[in-house]
């Protein structure tokens, strides 16, 4: 008889999921989340995502975990980009464009400067 209950099974699955998230670079020193709901995409978040993707693929940005997420309800400030950094309070940028994304990469992710005027 199979002794594993659904609950035990799901706990195992959760542990594996957490393991996979971590091995995909979740523990990088910096994590960047780009909002990718219909509203965000309509506001131009695909372009923003592309800038980050290219920077990582091209090697200019290292040790960064990039992910997408749904709408958090700040529709008037979209697209939003969130930077979560080891040991620091999360920073959320609003109305991010390609240009702003590039500046976030240069100034924030590389030099550690928080660009106050775009912070939500």
């Amino acid at each position, binding site marked *: 008889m199979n002794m594993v209950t659904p609950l035990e099974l799901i706990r195992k699955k*959760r542990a594996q999921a957490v393991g996979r998230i971590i091995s995909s670079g979740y523990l990088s020193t910096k994590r960047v989340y780009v909002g990718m709901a219909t509203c965000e995409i309509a506001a131009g978040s695909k372009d923003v995502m592309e800038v980050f993707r290219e920077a990582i693929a091209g090697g200019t940005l290292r040790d960064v975990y990039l992910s997408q997420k749904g709408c*958090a*309800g700040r529709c008037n400030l979209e697209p939003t980009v969130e930077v979560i950094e080891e040991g620091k309070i999360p920073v959320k940028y609003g109305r991010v464009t390609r240009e702003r994304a590039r500046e976030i990469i240069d100034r924030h992710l590389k030099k550690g400067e928080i660009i106050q005027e775009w912070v939500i």
Partner: protein
Amino acid sequence: MEKYVITLCDGTTCIQKKSREIRTALEAEIQKAGIADRVAIHLSGCLGMCAKGPIVIVNPGYSMYGNVTINDVPEIVQEHLIKGRPIARLTIDEDHLYNRFFRVFGDADFFGKQMRITLRNCGIIDPENIDDYLALRGYEALAKVLTDMTPQKVVETVKKSGLRGRGGAGFPTGVKWELTAKEPGPEKYVICNADEGDPGAFMDRSAIEGDPHTVIEGMIIGGFAIGSNKGIIYIRAEYPLAIKRLEKALADARKNGMLGDKILGSDFSFDIEIRLGAGAFVCGEETALIHSIEGARGMPRPRPPFPAQSGLFNKPTLINNVETWANIPVIILDGADWFSSIGTATSKGTKVFALAGKIKNTGLVEVPMGTTLREIVFNVGGGIPNGKKFKAVQTGGPSGGCLPEKYLETQIDYESLAAAGSIMGSGGMIVIDEDSCMVNMARFFLEFTQDESCGRCTPCREGTKRMLEILTRISEGQGQPGDIEKLERLGNMIKKSSLCGLGQSAPNPVLSTIKNFREEYEEHIHQHKCRAGVCTSLLTFEILDSCVGCGACKKVCPSEAISGKRKEKHAIDPQKCIHCGQCFMACKFGAIRKG
């Protein structure tokens, strides 16, 4: 060696309780133990657990420690980080699902009065990665149901929670489940209503796009509770991204054994398919929706029989709204008692609203039932932009009503909103300021419902058409004495005699604006005046003495109604003027008066 991430709350209360000192101590201890390369420290805003602060969370494993002191630091490092043994003494058991929200966004104004239950993962997880959902206790409610609960127990729990349908009517969800469970099987259906037809509403779309698995998990639990093996998500084709994410989520859930045969090794089998709707408002009505899935024309039919007795293919069918489904996993995991502790006497839990119109923070908000309209508009929504004055708030979309300032203290709850003359609806909330015309607003909604009327019953088909004609002539300055009374009579008749909810609620925007803003209707009819300056046919334009004669207005006027020599004052011929307002916008000197 295992890598760890420690999240420290850096909210105001936790800082007061010395969370910063704890951080310094932790860093020193980690350094001393020589494990700095495999431990990362993150800070978070207020986690909403201030009473138990300072809060320290260790991941993986999500151990949440509360009331942590400096003296606990060596133990955390030695026991947990080095030996891998979480410390039971410090652990807070109440891992309420909704707290996740505070962890990321903290207590900013916009989020302070919110409580995110159904949107708990929206904006936090990657909706296309099932691992993100699993990591946050995803599918644990399903596993719990399959391991420890009978279908009756699940129905009991939902009933006890006090959850009511979020699709508009507010029918008690548990009762609906019980009725469907009682019907003879084996063929029964579970439907998720994701038609979302209200103009300006996007709650369900965002919920699915941000966290599709929650809805799926809720539906599987519903299937288990009523004894069904087949679920259908009915979603409009105009939501391509939501559909794509649902498809991905369904495939991932199947791959992981959460859908299909013998779910998670149990005896229960269930699968879900997606059906696309063409985007007709009336197809959101449950009987019309069922016809549409059957391949027939999307027209409602009289009830009873209710879908619970005879629904899809005449089989017992459980139909609930997206947001209703998204509440289910939380109720199962955090318990009916906890859920029913939120809200008012008759309305439990939270409600999602799509805030739109003249408001600073447009977007999705989720607030506990019992929050007042004022709190939503002025705290969460940030008030009216550009220093304008608040005029009304419209809830319930084309089926709802407009509430003026004196109703701002109304609590969000099915009964109080109805008592005030509006409805909860599915969650559209439009804020109106002094620049909006109430007649025009009513006309907009009626135009929509008139257009969407399926045409099956006469009161709705013909009645709304006549009402629209009257409204149109009022806004064009052709209103006649007695029109208001005619609108009221027609409206009440349509409400009483229509077949489905569309017609029964279509006159609401008109009737509620007449009730609360009758003087605006009267001004339109008797004085040919629109105080907001929206109904352009009622506007007159006049050029003032400050005109410098630049000719800009003359250039844009499409009906050549403006004349005048260069550098001299121009004039408008009222006979030729078509009230388009182009000249008003073109004038750089404010020399044209609109009124």
